[in-house]
């Protein structure tokens, strides 16, 4: 079956603009995670969804970052008033349930803020 998909694959934006990144998890996967990968910080956890609720948002770097998930499926990560330090690859992962053996990662969205 299809894996985790993310769009866009690349996004270039100007400082101060808002961006939306989309994640389509594997069908039926109830747990969804967002991570960020950057040169300076490595791979960092951002937020976790179980169904449509987000019990752990502790990794969101600032209040400019928000995320939602609808219908227990698609998730959108929104970054408002982007800054250059937001430039990174944003990765989404899903798993069939919490503490499942495997998290499956999408291809990522490479965000560049000029």
């Amino acid at each position, binding site marked *: 079956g299809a894996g985790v998909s993310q769009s866009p694959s690349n996004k270039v934006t100007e400082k101060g603009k808002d961006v939306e990144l989309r994640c389509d998890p594997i069908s039926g996967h109830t747990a969804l*995670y967002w991570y960020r990968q950057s040169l300076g910080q*490595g791979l960092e956890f951002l937020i*976790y969804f*179980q169904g449509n609720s987000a019990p752990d948002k502790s990794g969101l770097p600032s209040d400019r970052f928000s995320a939602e998930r609808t219908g227990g499926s698609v998730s959108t990560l929104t970054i408002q008033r982007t800054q250059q330090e937001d430039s990174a690859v944003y*990765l989404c*992962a899903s798993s069939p349930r919490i*503490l499942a053996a495997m*998290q499956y*990662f999408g291809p990522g969205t490479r965000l560049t803020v000029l």
Partner: protein
Amino acid sequence: ELKVEQNPLFLSMQEGKNYTIYCNYSTTSDRLYWYRQDPGKSLESLFVLLSNGAVKQEGRLMASLDTKARLSTLHITAAVHDLSATYFCAVVLTSYGKLTFGQGTILTVHP
């Protein structure tokens, strides 16, 4: 705060040689993952280790977990060029699978 440290961070190997990548973590956990990442690509799951003493093998890679020592190893046997990639270990502390990653080990296998 959970810290996950890998070493070495850079590994240059000759084909046919053996080597081990180490992953140390600071807080007790019995769930550890190994991932592979090729340049410009996403993370590919290699192994999930779920208990003390767990050992998993796939081809030339073997991973093990010692929860008492808070240590996992990824052993490479008779390296080949196709194994060149970045390898990450990740530890789960929470009840819902939040991953904390090591820094990654960049492996380059030379002819």
